[in-house]
């Protein structure tokens, strides 16, 4: 039977010990699919702690789970749900919950923890959700969709589309090759070495720092935080960096048509432009470099400062 074949060898090892006044239980679970079944995706919902997903060149999925609670009764109430996956969908769903009475609640709790480390084949698509725990993905090649509340999100060495959302956590995305969409309400966002067709980032009250970006379509928006962009302006690319209260600082290379706007602040070009025009107060347009298909660079801040400096591209 296919269902049974998907998890023919699921071995669990458990170990309980006391650490720093807390009881700690460690479990290792191996999920070895039958050869005929391909794991397409992993879907993790752990609001009780960290989630770390690490890509590897092996079939099968390994879970290293660490539970922490102040006493044994509470430890017993921490549940990990690992239902038998649907072999057609090829999705492994993992969720955690705290048992309240007879009901399992997938809640965020501060005094108990479940941290999950998952080793999975690189080609598996990742979907993960946490609350105040850290979300980390590394070494995966089919993208990731990550959602956290207070917890930080760290993505490194990932290929494929990456979507991250956090309310208060900081985000750090590095070495991502694929379409990136990052959204944060009150956290800072650091983007480094992002390449792929598009990069979209939104932050309400936090800064965005983007360096070594090689995406062709970039849109970064903040309400209050500063934007700092360092990267190459690719031919035919579109770069839109907007803030309401924050400063916008761009230093890059490549030919571009430039539109800079600052209503209450100031525009400070550090590069000499061609065809300079000031069509209205607070707006500066011009061109830099020579190219048949120059990039379009839009920079604006209503109440902040716009600073930019460009060098010729390679």
């Amino acid at each position, binding site marked *: 039977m296919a269902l049974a074949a998907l998890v023919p060898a699921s071995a669990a090892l458990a170990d309980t010990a006391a650490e720093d*006044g807390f009881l700690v239980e460690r479990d290792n679970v191996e999920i070895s699919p039958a050869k005929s079944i391909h794991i397409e995706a992993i879907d993790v919902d752990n*609001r009780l702690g960290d989630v770390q997903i690490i890509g590897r060149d092996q079939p099968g999925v390994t879970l290293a789970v660490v539970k922490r609670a*102040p*006493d044994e009764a*509470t430890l017993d*109430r921490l549940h990990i749900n690992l239902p038998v996956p649907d072999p057609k969908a090829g999705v492994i769903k993992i969720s955690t919950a*705290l*048992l*309240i*009475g007879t009901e399992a*609640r*997938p*809640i*965020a*709790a*501060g*005094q*108990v923890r479940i941290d999950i480390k998952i080793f999975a084949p690189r080609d598996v698509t990742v979907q993960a959700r946490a*609350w*105040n725990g850290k979300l980390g993905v590394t070494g995966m090649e089919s993208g990731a969709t990550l959602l956290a*509340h207070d917890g930080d999100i760290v993505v490194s060495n990932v290929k494929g589309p990456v979507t991250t*959302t956090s*309310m*208060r956590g900081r985000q750090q995305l590095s070495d991502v090759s694929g379409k990136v969409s990052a*959204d944060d*309400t*009150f956290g800072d966002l650091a983007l480094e070495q992002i390449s792929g067709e598009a990069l979209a980032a*939104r932050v*309400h*009250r936090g800064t965005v720092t983007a360096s070594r970006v090689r995406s062709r379509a970039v849109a970064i*928006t903040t*309400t*209050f935080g500063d934007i700092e962009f360092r990267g190459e302006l690719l031919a035919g690319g579109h770069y839109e960096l*907007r803030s*309401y209260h924050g400063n916008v600082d761009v230093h890059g290379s490549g030919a571009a048509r430039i*539109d800079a*706007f600052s*209503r209450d602040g100031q525009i400070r070009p550090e590069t000499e432009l061609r065809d300079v025009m000031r*069509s*209205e107060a607070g*707006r500066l347009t011009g061109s830099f470099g020579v190219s048949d298909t120059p990039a379009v660079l839009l920079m*604006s*801040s*209503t109440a902040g400062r716009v600073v930019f400096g460009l060098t010729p591209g390679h």
Partner: protein
Amino acid sequence: MVERHQDFERLCDDYVDGRLDDLRTRAVRGHLRSCLSCTTRVEATQRLVAAASELSSIDPPSSMWSKIAAGLDEDEVRLADHGRLWWLWQGLARRLAFAGGALAVASLCIWAVALRGRTALAPALQTVRLHPSPESLYENALHEVERAQADYQAAVSDLRTIATGERARWQPEVQIAFDANLATIDAAVGRQAELARRNPGDVAVADALSESYRKEIDFLQDAVMRGQLQ
């Protein structure tokens, strides 16, 4: 005399249980010296308590107490002769003393907490291990979700304030479209918030509400940037 005996009789059980203050204990002991009825009752109660208890009692050596007891006997006989008002006063004074003591302790605690508040309290609290009940963990989790919604509302409020200031710069048709879209989003968020209020602990509903807030934030953020477009 019968009235006095009844007063003492009511205190016998408290005497055996050791719930009387020192003065009344000594007075009862003085009464027992002359009242066979109360002595019989007290001894019977004491035997019952002793039988019920598996713990062995530790008696002081008789040599230690013989001299002290002789001196106290006279005093106890004197105490037993007090009038009824004295008995009432002893009971009342004890309660007043207890209440006064409790107030003093409470104010001391408040003072201590206030002082601790000025210094770093967190390290001290870290040493306290409270074992939470599942219900309290659940309550905490619900509060976390409520705080998250409050955070989203704060962001929405920020942007609404900015939008109100920017609105005057927009074309009339843009203002109308903004108002209409925002009303639709507000209605959707309101429905979702009501659903979340009626289903506390339902994570799917809470997630949907958070998603609604994020969409509202995106919409408002786009709106306030509108004035930057040429």
